[in-house]
């Protein structure tokens, strides 16, 4: 009997203490998480293209050319008209640009590390000086969205305006130029970012996910409603 009592007390204390320790622990953990998401954890920049909102005005293309000094006849960003000829009134546009893969083949194959992932921001970008224009990254890209800039003679991709707007802590030029809010740019690792809020409520897909390169661009396709 006495032993039973002892055991009951022991269990009681154990339960009580676990509640206390547990909450403290939880608090510490939550604090840690908050800290890492703000400081310690590296950002993961991504972009949403919402097909429902894009009207194909191509002002994003114009802005991209201007801000990033892309030579005429070349593009980092292109809006393709994918409207089904059978239903010409139902417009479908698609953004064509670097998908900013988490496991980027261009970075893996570049022999001089000119095409690299920026240490701090995780953005796939280019060091034009080290590029010898072997075109390995261009043929290795599953999305065919890289090219040799005629003027710099270096390979290039959409790097979220890394050297221009991003350096000034501004949104990429295409996002700024879009009047219809079809483009959203933000940190996918920040649970409170606007891009994550949208991804929580809308169905978004990745382009050609079977290549396994984990692209950071998300597309919200037009979905047929009703039957």
């Amino acid at each position, binding site marked *: 009997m006495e032993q039973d009592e002892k055991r009951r007390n022991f269990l009681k204390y154990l339960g009580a203490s676990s509640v206390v320790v547990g909450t403290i622990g939880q608090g510490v953990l939550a604090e840690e998480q908050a800290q890492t998401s703000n400081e310690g954890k590296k950002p993961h920049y991504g972009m949403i293209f919402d097909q429902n909102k894009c009207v194909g005005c191509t002002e994003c293309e114009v802005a991209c050319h201007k801000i990033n000094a892309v030579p005429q006849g070349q593009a980092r960003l292109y809006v393709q008209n994918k409207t089904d000829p059978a239903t010409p009134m139902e417009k479908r546009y698609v953004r064509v640009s670097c998908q900013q893969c988490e496991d980027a083949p261009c970075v893996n194959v570049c*022999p001089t590390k000119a095409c690299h992932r920026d240490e701090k921001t995780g953005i796939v970008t280019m060091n034009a000086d080290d590029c010898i224009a*072997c075109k390995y990254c261009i043929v290795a890209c599953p999305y065919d969205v890289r090219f040799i800039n005629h003027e710099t003679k270096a390979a290039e991709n959409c790097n979220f305006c890394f050297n221009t707007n991003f350096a000034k802590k501004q949104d990429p030029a295409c996002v700024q130029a879009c009047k219809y809010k079809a483009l959203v740019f933000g940190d996918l690792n920040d649970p409170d970012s606007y891009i994550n809020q949208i991804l929580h409520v809308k169905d978004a897909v990745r382009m050609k996910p079977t290549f396994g390169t984990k692209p950071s661009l998300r597309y919200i396709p037009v979905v047929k409603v009703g039957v």
Partner: protein
Amino acid sequence: MNEAIEFTVGFSHGVEWGWPIGVYLLLAGISGGALIVSLALRYYQRQSVETPLLKAASLVSFVTIVFGMVFLVGDLEKPLYFWKILINYNFKSVMSIGVLALCLYIPLTFVLVAIVFEGWIKEHLATTPLAKLFFLFPLLKALRPAVEVLAFVFAIVVCAYTGFLISVLVRFPLLNTAILPALFIVSGLSAGTAFSSLIASFFFQADAHAGDMKTLHTIEWPVMALEMLLLFMLFVSLIVGTSFDKQTAGAFFQGGYSALFWFGVVGIGFGVPLVLNFLLGKKVAHSAFTFYLSGTASVLGVLSLRLFILYAGQTFSA
């Protein structure tokens, strides 16, 4: 694929790696293939003299790989910056690994030429300033076994890397296969054998129908059979694959590049040597005409194969 949304245009110009890379792939194959065959023969036949084949093969392997470098660097859009690839390395990149292998392989082939042509060099260059370097020959002689083994290993590495180099390109079903490095080694053997036989016979007076040449002539056919088998495997892997693979199998039957395959690879590369050596009687088969034509056809066939793989490969994308 997710067909709800997709784009179907790209920023490249279709075939980004064109004929200079195709010629480089051929030259690298000849270089590696020639060394592999001649060094293997030397080992198995326990040869100790410098045979015409070894002379030809060492010279061919050095000259072709150096010319290959010219094409490789020439294809860069910034050829004068090629040295950047020698000071920056990315060990995830097959190209970087290949550059490292070439940095060891090219000097090895050069040293091998110096060793094999010791007699000729001492005879012809004695009056030049290079004679001051003749004291190195005893050292080279001592290092010869090591040089031969390393050259043999790196010859295989160079042949194989050219295959891996383009087999990592996931966008192209014809290229992104496990067969490619094997196909490049085997076709490199075939082109290397043919080219060094031609040189051995023409410049170093090898008897086209005796000794090493005869042995090579018998090895030639199993190598060709293996090449055909690998091509057949490549084709089958495509027709039984995904919808992109099936579409890519069309490379063998539609468009200009299928002509390159059937006329170049099959007709010239396989057909001409087979017809000349087996169908037109012993007299034709043993003629010098057949020897040279059949060897040239083999080399042209492998060139066609490299170009077909490269061009058709980059034309059909997933």
